[in-house]
């Protein structure tokens, strides 16, 4: 048992925090209000290696580990959750499945540009009628002999409007249910592929969330990721890892809200005393800090298990459900402790509260996480 970060992990924390405070925090409110994707910071994050943290250098990665990846998403999300999810969706949902299931040719073709951040990645599983019920896929991929033909649509795709590479699930054999789903690599420039509506969301407003539309989308045979019929397996394994990313995002939101609230309570005076001097409010801070730290331990443990190649699905689900609910709890308390000011856009806590909510929903709702956890515990 060792609860200390390594020197490298400490430096990642220090570096990403410095970067986030200097480059991300100053524009966080503006990009939220204008629903603007922060392309300028994507370029900067690419330069510093934040899009390839847990991948080997031979494919253009930074040669780091999953705890460092979790720290990267956490520290970015501490000041801007929209920026955090750009890295999380790209890394966990696009780069990782190519790294884990791709052929050597696919890895060499896609990973160097993705991991260097020259290309952004996205992942398309969810459909209008297939959310938590992922097996209800209606997007079809037909084997046309020398190519695949994709038809259908995906919704709520993070990074959709700015990605170059998409991992897309489609039915290759409807009669086989989940075993009839296959995974494909789609490029932005593919014929018959287009980006549909951009969602107008409650939170993470600077993140690009779009539809993907496939109308007789023709893709070469070598874009199949894994084997025919393995798409569901690819998707579920990808989402296991993705949960560490979203749990890290939730953890970052909680820590960010806690930090600004502590500063506020030390400055704000009522009844002649600072807010931080009222015991009832001190106890609120104690609960917020405890839940945040508990979330951190679950997140880092799941990431550590992934690094050690141990089965981590249940731990990632625990980290995600706990961190997401901690983020919602902490941000709601933060708004309350700020009082009326907390409800205004002059302070960051209302944004953090709106951003926190999505972490209970995407990449598996809290209900789905409880299904995963209870199935593992009860041995179903």
């Amino acid at each position, binding site marked *: 048992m060792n609860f200390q970060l390594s*020197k*490298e992990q400490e*430096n990642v924390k220090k*570096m990403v925090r410095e970067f986030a405070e200097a480059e991300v925090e100053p524009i966080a409110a503006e990009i939220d209000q204008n629903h603007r994707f922060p392309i300028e910071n994507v370029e900067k994050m690419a330069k510093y290696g934040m899009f390839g943290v847990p991948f080997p250098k031979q494919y253009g990665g930074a040669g*780091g580990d999953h705890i460092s990846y979790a720290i990267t998403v956490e520290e970015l999300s501490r000041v801007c959750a929209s920026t955090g999810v750009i890295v999380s969706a790209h890394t966990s949902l696009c780069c990782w499945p190519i790294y884990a299931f791709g052929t050597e040719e696919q890895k060499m073709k896609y990973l160097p540009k993705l991991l260097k951040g020259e290309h952004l990645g996205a992942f398309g599983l969810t459909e209008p009628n297939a959310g938590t019920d992922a097996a209800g896929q209606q997007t079809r991929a037909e084997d046309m002999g020398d190519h695949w033909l994709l038809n259908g649509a995906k919704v709520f795709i993070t990074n959709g409007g700015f990605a170059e590479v998409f991992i897309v699930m489609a039915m290759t054999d409807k009669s086989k249910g989940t075993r009839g789903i296959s995974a494909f690599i789609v490029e932005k420039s593919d014929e018959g592929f287009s980006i549909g509506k951009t969602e107008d969301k409650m939170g993470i407003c600077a993140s690009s969330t779009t539809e993907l539309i496939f109308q007789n989308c023709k893709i070469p045979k070598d874009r199949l990721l894994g084997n025919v019929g393995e798409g569901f397996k690819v998707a579920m394994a990808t989402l296991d890892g993705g949960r560490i990313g979203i749990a890290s995002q939730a953890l970052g939101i909680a820590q960010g809200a806690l930090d600004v609230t502590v500063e506020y309570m030390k400055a704000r005076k009522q009844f002649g005393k600072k807010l931080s001097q009222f015991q009832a409010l001190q106890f609120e801070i104690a609960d917020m800090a405890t839940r945040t730290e508990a979330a951190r331990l679950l997140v880092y443990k799941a990431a550590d298990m992934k690094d050690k190649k141990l089965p981590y699905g249940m731990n990632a689900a625990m980290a995600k459900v706990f961190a997401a609910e901690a983020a919602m709890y902490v941000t709601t308390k933060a708004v309350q402790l700020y009082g009326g000011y907390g409800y205004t856009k002059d302070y960051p806590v209302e944004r953090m509260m709106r951003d926190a909510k999505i972490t209970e929903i995407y990449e598996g709702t809290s209900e789905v996480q409880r299904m995963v956890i209870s199935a593992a515990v009860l041995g179903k």
Partner: protein
Amino acid sequence: MAFNILVCAKQVPDTNVIKINPKTGTLIRDGVPSILNNDDANALEEALRIKDEFEDVVVTVVSMGPPQAQDMLTECLAMGADEAILISDRAVGGSDTQATSNALVATIKKAEKEMGKSFDLVFAGRQAIDGDTAQVGPQVAEKLDLPQVTYVEECSLNAEMNEVTVKRNLEDGYEVIKVKTPCMLTAIKELNTPRYMTIEGIFSAKDKPTHVWSAADVEVDLSTVGLEASPTNVFRSFTPAPKGKGEMIEATSEKELVEKLLVGLKSKHVI
């Protein structure tokens, strides 16, 4: 042959978070993070900028300090430096600027001998935020017999890599100076904005050479380093009392103004 740049760097307590014990007048160092000295970060950035611009540039960082100063050197490597040297020994502890520059010069000479190279450019920060002397850089230059330019706010190396044009920031203006390499430059914050570490750099740092040398390793004359060899002794440290508010003299004419000033100065027995 590679163009070799040396950067002198110091690990310092982060004075933004440090507090002074009002009773003893000493720094409260508990829980204060140690950082790469600010001006030294500018010095390193300039060296790395030259490395980005020209081919075959090797950047070496040298420091004197306790073993934990290796953490700061690791950060320098994670920013992009190629190798690091730390002179760390009880014998050099308590050194003032004179003794420090003796130890650093011995280390630099040892590095040149050991690595079979000579440094074409030596950078240092103007001064450290803990000592604030601005003496070590110039002393190193003198002892290495290198021409030096201090307070550098702009720097450009010519294509032949044998002459640097620098803009020197002075209180009442600036100088533009051309200086042949090898030479020593001390950096100020106006020179550039230091880059962050990169994630790849953080995970590659342990693969880059880091030398930790003792006083014996660098063959320094022990009578020239450490507390005993330091002509500077701290007699007392204190927080200066705040100065009173100045008095503004108003008058309708220059003559009246001067008269009022003279009366005021006389009454305070200044003249």
